[in-house]
């Protein structure tokens, strides 16, 4: 990949903006199109571009597989945990009204949290899947 100078530089330039856009989609999902699913995919695609440019091994130094596994499970647990917290607060499972004194504020907190959980899981699962596929065909040359 050393010869693809233009791709590398343009890719490096684009990656932060893709991540920023992913975060925007994640946290602006209440107001515009978007949400955890889309944001997770966009965020993961930044890492996919990095992999295409620099090889699986270099990307896995930034995002090691064990961290991705923890984050993937953490997203599901965060979502399910919001439900448990709402039960402990006296409501039904995933009833966000009881998360704050004001039902509307509770709904906002609940939605932000579960969307964040969705985003975490989707982003890390897609990265894990991509690494699993791309890592198999990857020759040893990128290790050096």
């Amino acid at each position, binding site marked *: 990949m050393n010869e693809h100078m233009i791709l590398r530089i343009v890719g490096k330039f684009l990656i932060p903006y893709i991540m920023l856009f992913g975060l925007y989609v994640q946290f602006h999902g209440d107001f515009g199109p978007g949400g955890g699913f889309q944001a997770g995919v966009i965020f993961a695609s930044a890492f996919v571009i990095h992999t295409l440019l620099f090889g699986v091994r270099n990307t896995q130094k930034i995002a090691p597989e064990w961290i991705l596994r923890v984050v993937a499970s953490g997203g599901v647990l965060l*979502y399910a945990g919001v439900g448990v917290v709402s039960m402990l607060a006296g409501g039904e499972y995933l009833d966000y009204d009881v998360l704050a004194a004001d039902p509307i504020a509770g*709904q906002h907190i609940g*939605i932000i949290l579960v*969307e964040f959980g969705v985003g975490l899981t989707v982003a890390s699962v897609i990265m894990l899947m991509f690494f699993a*596929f791309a890592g198999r065909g990857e020759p040893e040359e990128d290790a050096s």
Partner: protein
Amino acid sequence: MNLEQLIDVFLLAFLAIISIAMLRIRDLFSCVMLFGIYSLVSASLFMVLDAADVAFTEAAVGAGIATILMMATLGLTGREEKVLVKKKISWLPLIIVTITGATLVYGIVDLPPFGAADNPSQVHVAPRYIHESMSEIDVPNLVTAVLASYRGFDTLGEVVVIFTAGVGVLLLIGRRRRKEEEQPHE
């Protein structure tokens, strides 16, 4: 015929052309690219239907991630489809497909008109979402309100499905790679 219908016809015609091209093409790399284009055209179609969130997902997952996963797979398998020796036409699949297709077309006759305001899907829970969500949840994007709050259980299920898919992929091909790494030359 107004402009929107014209765009619909164009996009649907594109979908048909792309599908036929995918069936006939032998080069798998081109086939993967056509899959991506198909997703992109579908996303445009969803956009015409004002489903911005769905279009967004289709463009990101279908055109982006799925294409890249398919290309990663191609890197492992090779890019030419094997040419099968032409056998005689097998009639049974053709008959089954024809009957199923005819049944589906027959089923279309009973469907209510597309997008009509009194369709069953529009009068069940949708009015309540539309009228009450601003006072109950106060999230301007109705899709997010329905997805994360009203249908919280469904979405939790979806996240668990994605997580399970990831676990499945890792169990099937992730583990094996690590074993190969342990052995020095494979």
